[in-house]
């Protein structure tokens, strides 16, 4: 299934709970303030990299760009546009937004 996280890992525990709950083989899409987790030097980068062994990790490019963070994306994170977001939703049978 597709997991969507829209909160900064420094602000909320959504990413932590999502990573502890998500089952192997799923996908994680970071949007809005969630994209900060996918940037180099962020304290959450380590756990995100670790999660890549079990989950495919995506981040919404427009949200990274809007925040001036597009030039420091963590290795292994796949960037998508809104069309890519739509594809992720249709490719997975269900999605959960970790609000």
């Amino acid at each position, binding site marked *: 299934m597709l997991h969507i996280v*829209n909160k900064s890992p420094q602000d909320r525990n959504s990413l932590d709970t999502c990573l502890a709950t998500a089952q192997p083989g799923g996908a994680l899409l970071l*949007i809005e*303030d969630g994209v900060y987790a996918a940037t180099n030097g962020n304290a959450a980068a380590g756990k995100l990299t670790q999660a890549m062994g079990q989950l495919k990790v995506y981040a919404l490019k*427009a949200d990274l760009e809007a925040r001036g963070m597009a030039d420091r994306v963590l290795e292994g994170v796949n960037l998508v546009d809104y069309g890519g977001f*739509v594809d992720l*939703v249709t490719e997975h049978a269900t999605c959960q937004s970790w*609000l």
Partner: protein
Amino acid sequence: MDIGILINEGPYTHQASDSAYLFARAAIEKGHKVSRVFFYHDGVNNSTRLTEPPQDDRHIVNRWAKLGQEHSIDLVVCVAAALRRGIKDENLAPGFRISGLGQLIETGIQSERLVTFGD
């Protein structure tokens, strides 16, 4: 594919409605059907025609109304949440309608995907 959308936050304070709009537009461009957008919690504030953003800002209410009309999207505002927040038929923007929570459940049953945008 038939995709339903749930929006739980109002315009301008949270990004939820913007993200949902861009998602919906992209889905339509890809040939999918967005059958219904359900507005709940403060999300009901996306539907008031009294909204007047500055000229150089996006008009979140009007662009939902326009997208809805152009692509026959059922824009449903939850009645209980709306009445709590002073949203009534008389201040509803064109294209929106007020109805019950059952419409959200129905979307969950009838659409192939349901995507939630919120805080």
